[in-house]
């Protein structure tokens, strides 16, 4: 029998605490170096040094442009998306106590698609609105509708209202997603040409090609806010282990805590989807994988999932750029192609190691 392990050993003693930022930086550099033309790592580092500390290394301006304007910004945004979606998965799986909960559960990606399609194809906003802001508005509308529906469904349940509230969100999310997906299909069928339809499908599967530094200015703060919010509520997230009533009886103010956390991750998801489309599997798989690696206590799970999600999506983006010569695949295709088998392996190994 092992000695009783303290629940919260100092994070400074864990080697992952030291290694994970290095891994994250390494994958950012790799994301900038690898592509159609490979750029040596020392060139990447010199470009970054020139930018940040005015190092004045002599660099081919084309290389510098590719690294800084194209690849590095793209990797940073990819990392933010991965981290944000993974955090959303952690929070939703913990609060709704449903292992299948993922960031798109609340109709956010469906709403974003509808918004994007209305702007891009039906011409709403008269060219003033960008695809992203249309997607953001659509995501917000869908989330609002789903929340209202879940609230209305929860109110009629009474005694187990808080428990049913969780299930209510899932069902309302399914209903909302169906509605908005139908609207999207309707708009495409009504007014899109074949070319437009292909383009919008590509965007819906996740597309990082248009990403620039301006996107990172949104993505980085959004992820940091989400990360800090989750870490701040780590004990509350743990308290939901045995359900909402149990959390309430241990002093958690269930409704406000749930509203803050779900609202935060919904916002982050909406920001990400509006920038790069709906990238599947990250929010579902990464938290599960991290639970197996670091356990289900959130003071470890939250940072681990954020870092792992970031690294996973940066890697998936690199793969999407190089796997087919001369063509960039939608990143959602790559995440699902990698994610599904990896998830299967984790599930099987996890089951046998019990």
């Amino acid at each position: 029998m092992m000695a009783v392990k303290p629940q919260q050993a100092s994070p400074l003693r864990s080697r992952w605490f030291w290694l994970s930022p290095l891994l994250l930086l390494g994958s950012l550099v790799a994301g900038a170096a690898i592509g159609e033309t490979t750029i040596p790592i020392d060139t990447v580092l010199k470009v970054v040094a020139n930018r940040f500390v005015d190092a004045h290394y002599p660099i081919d301006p084309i290389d510098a442009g590719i690294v800084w304007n194209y690849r590095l910004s793209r990797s940073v945004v990819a990392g933010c998306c991965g981290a944000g979606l993974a955090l959303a998965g952690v929070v939703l799986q913990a609060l709704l106590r449903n292992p299948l909960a993922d960031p798109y559960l609340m109709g956010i990606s469906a709403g974003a698609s509808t918004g994007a399609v209305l702007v891009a194809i039906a011409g709403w906003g008269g060219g003033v609105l960008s695809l992203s802001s249309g997607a953001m508005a659509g995501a917000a509308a869908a989330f609002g509708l789903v929340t209202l529906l879940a609230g209305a469904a929860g109110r009629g349940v009474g005694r187990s209202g808080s428990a049913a509230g969780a299930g209510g969100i899932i069902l309302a999310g399914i209903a909302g997603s169906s509605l908005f997906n139908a609207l999207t299909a309707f708009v495409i069928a009504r007014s899109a040409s074949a070319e437009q339809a292909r383009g919008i499908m590509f965007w819906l599967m996740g597309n990082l090609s248009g990403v620039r530094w301006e996107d990172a200015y949104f993505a980085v703060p959004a992820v940091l806010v989400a990360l800090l919010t989750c870490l701040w509520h780590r004990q509350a997230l743990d308290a939901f282990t045995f359900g909402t009533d149990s959390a309430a009886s241990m002093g958690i103010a269930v409704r406000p805590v749930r509203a803050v956390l779900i609202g935060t991750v919904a916002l982050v998801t909406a920001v990400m989807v509006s920038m790069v489309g709906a990238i599947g599997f990250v929010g579902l798989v990464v938290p599960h994988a991290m639970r197996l690696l670091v356990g289900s206590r959130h003071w470890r799970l939250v940072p681990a999932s954020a870092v792992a999600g970031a690294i996973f999506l940066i890697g998936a983006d690199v793969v999407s750029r190089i796997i087919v010569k001369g063509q960039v695949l939608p990143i959602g295709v790559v995440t699902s192609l990698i994610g599904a088998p990896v998830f299967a392996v984790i599930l099987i190994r996890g089951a046998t190691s019990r």
Partner: protein
Amino acid sequence: MNLTVDNVGWRIRGRPLLQDVSFEVQSGETLGLIGPNGSGKTTLLRLLAGLEKTKQGTVYLGNRDISRLPRREVARTVAFVEQQASTEERINVYQAVSLGRTPFLSPLRPWALEDEQIVACALHDVGMSQLANRAWHTLSGGERQRAHIARALAQQPEILLLDEPTNHLDIRHQLSLLQLVDHLPVTVIVALHDLNQAMMCDRIGVMEEGRLVDIGTPRTVLTAARLRQTFGVHVDILPAPGEANPVMRFRQAL
């Protein structure tokens, strides 16, 4: 700490689940709640735990209205063990019990040595120190129930609410759990199904269709007439040689 229930009622969609319930529990007392299925025991416990707001009347912790206290403060005084609380998470017993420290922790007041000692103590009290590292999903029903009680004890409550804690346990675990509860130095309110087990409480409250129809010592409350009226059974109450309390023999349903 005293717990006072003053004229409490609760209804759902107009259907009353509790009506005009009043009683008081003294510090250190063990109160058993008995009554047929659906008589309002669980609803009453949920109101006492502050999980639901009373729709009529007031629950007082000491002399303070529970509905005006912050959740955290209630959780530092009252611990509640639900009938069924399970998890899919891969946590061990120690982690499950340490959740009981939640009302004392905050982002700025992290886990400390003191919490560790309290959790170890709670595990010891329920006789599960040896199982601290066991994975939750490998525990038997009785062990889970003990772990839940340890989790509640880690809240260092003055009042412990237990909702049919002996359900689904074999007879040995039922008895050891009741012994455990009996020896805890806190006020206990426990909903029970087994009427013979209710005999060990200091007082018994009888629930019937949302009303508290009787409350008093086991001998005065558990009479043949009461059991016929509330539970619909014919019963013989027999003296047990060498025991303080008589035993009940159930003959037939009415």
